[in-house]
């Protein structure tokens, strides 16, 4: 019966390292048994009473225990964690609710497989600013603007540390450069009755943008028929609606909108895409012909005439 008496220590080793573990204070030539996660370890890994692990990899991580040969007293126990030192982190700062705050978020280009701690410092001129961490997502924090319209650059340094090493990255930026709104919201596109080449598009300012009156947004609208790849664009300096007047009749369109502060920063990502088809006239039937079954078509669904029906005024339906 094995007796456990030791506090578990944690041991971090780099992938590829050679690891030698002593059995506590036991002599080199003492008779011992090593286990990993409760399973005995093959004698080939032993050098006397020392456990030798060559070119360790992630699979080597686990709980290693060493018991004295005859009494089965636990003489040594450690939790081996194999990983890597952190690479230079990727850091990005952005303000999507200017002029209230900006946030910085970061990630590691590759996993380290062991716990990392992150420390961020935000300097504006001579002033260190507080970066309020969030519970979720963990790799983001917010900074409140204390000063606006400053020519002084911001300097943000992120340091990442784990048991195997440390790394850091620093970015410097102007106040205006990181202003990037969220995409416009609630984009809606509708046909305009009796206008086969028009589509009316409406949207809202991103709800995260705090003061659209003092910090008005301009918009970029792009649209194309599904059957084509080439987008058409129009920039709109105010207002949150636009009527497309050159749509191909009867063709389904995909439409997206982006936003930007009128004077500073960069364009938002594109909004969610919406689809719409311009209004099309109801096809007319000749009353003297055999009554074709009455097909109800809504102006926005694609109309497939039954084979017996004679299409009248063909030009009216396509591209009037």
């Amino acid at each position, binding site marked *: 019966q094995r007796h456990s008496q030791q506090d578990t220590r944690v041991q971090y080793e780099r992938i590829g390292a050679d690891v030698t573990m002593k059995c506590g204070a036991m002599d080199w030539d003492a008779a011992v048994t090593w286990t990993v996660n409760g399973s005995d370890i093959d004698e080939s890994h032993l050098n006397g009473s020392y456990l030798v692990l060559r070119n360790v990899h992630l699979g080597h991580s686990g709980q290693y225990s060493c018991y004295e040969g005859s009494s089965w007293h636990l003489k040594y126990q450690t939790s081996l964690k194999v990983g890597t030192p952190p690479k230079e982190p990727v850091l990005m700062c952005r303000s999507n609710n200017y*002029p209230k705050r900006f946030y910085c978020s970061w990630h590691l280009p590759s996993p380290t497989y062991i716990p990392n701690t992150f420390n961020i410092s935000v300097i504006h001129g001579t002033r260190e600013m507080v970066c309020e961490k969030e519970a979720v997502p963990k790799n983001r924090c917010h900074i409140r603007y*204390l000063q606006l319209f400053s020519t002084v650059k911001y300097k943000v340094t992120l340091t990442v540390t784990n048991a195997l090493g440390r790394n850091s990255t620093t970015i410097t930026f102007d106040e205006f450069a990181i202003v990037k709104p969220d995409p416009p919201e609630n984009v809606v596109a509708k046909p305009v009755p009796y206008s086969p080449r028009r589509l009316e598009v409406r949207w809202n300012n991103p709800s995260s943008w705090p003061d659209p009156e003092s910090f008005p947004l301009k918009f970029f609208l792009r649209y194309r028929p599904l059957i084509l790849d080439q987008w058409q664009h129009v920039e709109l300096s105010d207002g949150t609606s636009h009527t497309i007047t050159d749509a191909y009749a009867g063709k389904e369109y995909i439409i997206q909108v982006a936003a930007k502060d009128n004077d500073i920063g960069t364009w938002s990502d594109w909004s969610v895409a919406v689809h719409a088809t311009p209004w099309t006239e109801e096809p007319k039937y000749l009353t003297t012909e055999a009554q074709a079954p009455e097909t109800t078509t809504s102006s926005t669904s694609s109309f497939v005439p039954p084979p017996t029906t004679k299409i009248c005024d063909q030009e009216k339906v396509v591209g009037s």
Partner: protein
Amino acid sequence: MASAERPPVILRSLDLCSRAIRLARKIRSDVVSLLDSYVERQGLDKNISLDGVDSMPTAAVEHWSELTEAERLGNNLKAYRIFQTLLAEVLEDQRTHLTPTDTNFHESIQSVMLQVSALASQLEELLMLLEHSVPAREEVEGTADSTSRSMFEKKLRGLKVLQELAQWSVRSVKDLHHVTKHSHSSSTVHVSHQ
């Protein structure tokens, strides 16, 4: 109740605000391109540190959203008056010392000067229209000892003037939008009380 017309003063101020916004935007775009040609002609790095260059109106402001209308417009007016003097100094330095033969460059500086002067006039008119006191004109620091500066200091100072002016033009646009926003809301309150 009369139809929802806005009082003439409000309409006039809204019109002035929108004209001033357009002018401030024009100044911004002109100054940004002037900055590019300035650093090129002076052989400067755009990111050179200008911490040592002072005595000019910095656009940086704290608690911006809490400024009163009078403070907002008054601060703008004071700044643009000073910029008129500083730009004249920059132009003089360029003509006399730094780029004496580059008349096109001088004209682009002069064009910005004229726009800054026009904006100052509009701000003054707006202040009076909205019944705020117009700040008194102040002697601009730094101009007196401009002759004692080295060529390099003159270059740096010119760059700082243009950088701060670019920043101020954005601030002015936002300040004027803020004034417009409150003119809208006060005129709505005014109409509803009739």
